[in-house]
């Protein structure tokens, strides 16, 4: 193998991307706006809250220059509501991702442009980086949570439930079929990619000869002019 790494992102890479997310901090010291490649950061004036990238917030937190205010979905109330939804109301699907603001323009429809970890993020949905962000905040700023242990426990439960769902998803897979993965987070994708891809590949190999036969039959029917045109159009869409 030429590449030592499997396709896709490794967990450290996903976590690195997550550090681009904006979080809300409560500064303890003044800090002028920094001119960075990604644009200027918000100036910090205690006691006003500002949104700054997670990596900067972690740095300031470590130097005790700021406190991080956890996003609203990372609270026991929200997490237990989401967990209940995952267990009780949608046995197969994942809880839906945060809804896009109706006013969202074309360039702020995805993280980090879509604010999903600031204090005004929607409380009722898990954003794309929920797992990484939660883990990092729980480790870096446990004293900024009201009930860190309970949040930690709920995060673990959520992860268990969702991993089990992701695994159960392969049972309904088909060589050409799919499983609905709306609302699956970045770390979960990174974790499941190798396995799910492997299963689909295996099914494709087993079904290859049948697929071949089907193609040939269809080509034949098309040549003979049997098949309806509507059906043909549909098949081409699938490709």
């Amino acid at each position, binding site marked *: 193998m030429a590449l030592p790494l*499997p396709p896709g992102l*490794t*967990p*450290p890479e996903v*976590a690195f991307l997550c550090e681009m997310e904006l979080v809300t901090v409560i500064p303890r010291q003044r800090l002028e706006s920094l001119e960075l490649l990604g644009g200027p950061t918000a100036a910090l004036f205690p006691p006003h809250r500002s949104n700054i990238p997670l990596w900067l917030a*972690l740095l300031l937190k*470590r130097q005790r220059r700021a406190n991080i205010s956890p996003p609203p979905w990372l609270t026991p109330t929200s997490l237990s509501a989401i967990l209940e939804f995952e267990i009780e109301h949608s046995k197969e699907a994942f809880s839906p991702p945060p809804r896009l603001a109706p006013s969202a323009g074309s360039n702020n429809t995805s993280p980090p442009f879509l604010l999903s970890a600031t204090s005004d993020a929607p409380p009722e949905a898990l954003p794309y980086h929920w797992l990484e962000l939660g*883990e*990092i905040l729980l*480790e*870096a700023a446990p004293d900024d949570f009201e009930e860190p242990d309970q949040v930690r426990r709920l995060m673990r439960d959520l992860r268990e439930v969702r*991993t089990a769902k992701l*695994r*159960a998803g*392969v*049972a309904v*897979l*088909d*060589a050409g079929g799919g499983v609905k993965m709306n609302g699956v987070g970045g*770390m979960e994708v*990174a*974790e*499941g*990619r*190798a*396995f799910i891809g*492997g*299963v689909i590949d*295996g*099914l494709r*190999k*087993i*079904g*290859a*000869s*049948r697929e*071949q*036969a089907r193609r040939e039959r269809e080509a034949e029917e098309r040549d003979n002019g049997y098949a309806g045109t509507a059906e043909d159009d549909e098949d081409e869409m699938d490709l």
Partner: protein
Amino acid sequence: MKQGGKVELPLWLGEMLAVSQGPTPLLTLDLPTSLSPRVLNALKADPRTVDLRALAAHFYALGARMLELFEEEEVGDVLSETFKQRAAVLADQAHNPRGAMGEGADFLRGLDEQERRLFRAAHDSAKAVRTWMAENKTRR
């Protein structure tokens, strides 16, 4: 080889003789014993208890190859259903570190090559996430 007799040949040789040019093929192929009706019935009953490795180290690859040679709709169905069901069990075992000890050991021994690769992939990615979480704890 006598006419009308049955012999076991390597797949490549049997295949070549079966599709060789000529007015009549030199021989006709049967499904290999690892895809015999008895095995298929066992797979239909419970895919998880069959030791695929004992049947053929590359069970699914062999199956896919045979499906190219034979028009066996049912074999294909059984194979993909088996693969799916076993993949789900395999994922559970891969995520569960103590799975390799107790009751899972027999199942893991019976995986064919393709399933072993899958197990390794699932196990490695689960481990990578665990490693990241552990590092996250020590770093902050």
